[in-house]
């Protein structure tokens, strides 16, 4: 079974982002970039499937600038077998990404696509569901457990009231939630080996997909801030303040 794992290059989750003064976006100059954390979980899950003998090939794909090669090398160092980069400069929306991935699926014929449930830059939480729709496949989003069989997969999903178990018919789309696994750190020998693994470069034209955005970004601004309040001496003081000043209890 072949598993396809799309990965996105995003601002590292530890970076405190800054909004540009002219309101056109977020300042990405000289900011540390990494693989989207949810995508790391997706890669880890795919590699574990291979290690368990349930998958025989893991293909990582990224859509983004030339530097997204580094993100793909990370996936290869974690254990993916080969990688595909579709080069796109500038922002790209989930709908376009899903259309490009549909093209990759047509070429590669995977039985399973595992994606992160959302990217931590645009926080859209759409790509997996959209890809599933375009392919007419089954979908299991927000997975915290994946039990892969030959023709079906049992997936436990994180939902608002707790957990939900569903069974999906393969081929299927699974999106990874936080607790699906804990991604490994790539070892130095594996990082060296990853440099020699195949990485193919394509363009949106190869798939006949136009990537022009549908949403016009009018403005990006800082959120309304909260100002720090006061420190109170103890519980008695706190209860007094909550009753008299804030009126919330």
């Amino acid at each position: 079974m072949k598993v396809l794992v799309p990965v996105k290059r995003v601002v590292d989750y530890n970076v405190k982002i800054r909004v540009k003064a002219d309101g056109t976006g977020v300042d990405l100059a000289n900011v540390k970039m990494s693989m989207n954390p949810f995508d790391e979980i997706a890669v880890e899950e795919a590699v574990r499937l291979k290690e368990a003998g349930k998958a025989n090939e893991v293909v990582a794909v990224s859509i983004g600038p030339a530097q997204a090669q580094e993100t793909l090398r990370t996936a290869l160092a974690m254990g993916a077998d080969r990688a595909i980069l579709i080069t796109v400069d500038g922002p790209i929306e989930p709908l376009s990404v899903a259309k490009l991935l549909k093209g990759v699926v047509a070429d590669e014929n995977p039985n399973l696509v595992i994606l992160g449930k959302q990217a931590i830059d645009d926080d859209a939480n759409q790509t997996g569901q959209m890809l599933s729709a375009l392919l007419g496949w089954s979908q299991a989003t927000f997975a915290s457990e994946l039990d892969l069989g030959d023709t079906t997969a049992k997936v436990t999903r994180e939902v608002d009231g707790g957990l939900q178990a569903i069974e999906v018919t393969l081929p299927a789309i699974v999106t990874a939630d936080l607790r699906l696994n804990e991604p490994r750190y790539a070892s130095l020998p594996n990082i060296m080996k990853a440099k020699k693994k195949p990485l193919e470069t394509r363009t949106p034209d190869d798939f006949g997909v136009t990537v022009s955005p549908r949403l016009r970004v009018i403005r990006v601004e800082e959120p309304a801030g909260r100002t720090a309040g006061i420190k109170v001496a103890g519980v008695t003081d706190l209860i007094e303040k909550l009753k008299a000043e804030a009126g919330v209890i």
Partner: protein
Amino acid sequence: MAILLFAEHDNQSLSDQTAKALSAASLIGGDIDILIAGKNAGSVADAAAKLSGVRNVILAEGDTLEHRLAEPTAALIVNLSGDYDTILAPATTTGKNVLPRVAALLDVMQVSDVIEVVSPDTFKRPIYAGNAIETVQTTDATRILTIRTTSFAAATGDNAPAPIKTIDAGSDGTGLSTFLENILSKNDRPELGSAKIIVSGGRALGSAERFQEVMTPVADKLGAAIGASRAAVDAGYASNDLQVGQTGKVVAPDLYIACGISGAIQHLAGMKDSKIIVAINTDEDAPIFQVADYGIVGDLFDILPELERQL
């Protein structure tokens, strides 16, 4: 044209997240229909019909819709989409699961997590875990939106009932997924999403037992819901559905008491719209104090029992 609101419910009662998303729909303007997809969900349809500003309630019932699996539910909405120029849902795990599928089938780019309606085609939404707010204008003929319900007040629910139209559930999108079971957390507390008071615990609680022991009495006294930070959930002190944060639940109660939570960016994104925030932490430099209205520097194992006694 008209707006279709995909309702959140559990086949027995209508979630108030639907009433909140309805307020967002009213701000967009136009005739609003509410879709109830479910099974034996007549009482939900009755409740939806009484919400203010509803033109029709559309009730589609069937086995495949009982748990609103993504494939048949999206197919149902797509079949109805010709009559609507806006389709929206509260940004619950169901809404997030179903609506992007609808959007792709209609070749539309969805706007996720709307926090403000600027005009009928322009919306504000948080990006980068709420560290920036983006204003976007859609250029698609149909607008597909998920609504962050903490940003909108609930529409009133005691009006003269709108007509309920029953439609066929259809069979499109069936056979791809099967529901197995729900493993839902059982408790008598208010739901996190609608609670007036939330007592939330972090890694400092140290274990699942102590989380229970120390948090429960205070929450009981206040009639509060219990929340947790990602660190506490990852450590196994609390179940996943209690997680407050950008990747968990986004809440905005009247009072949020953060106990032993340092205040990571992703946690703040989930609770910083609360009316009053109280922070209890041993580290006086913890980032949580920068957003707290009232802070107590001290050991939560002393302070929480004391709080419980004095309340």
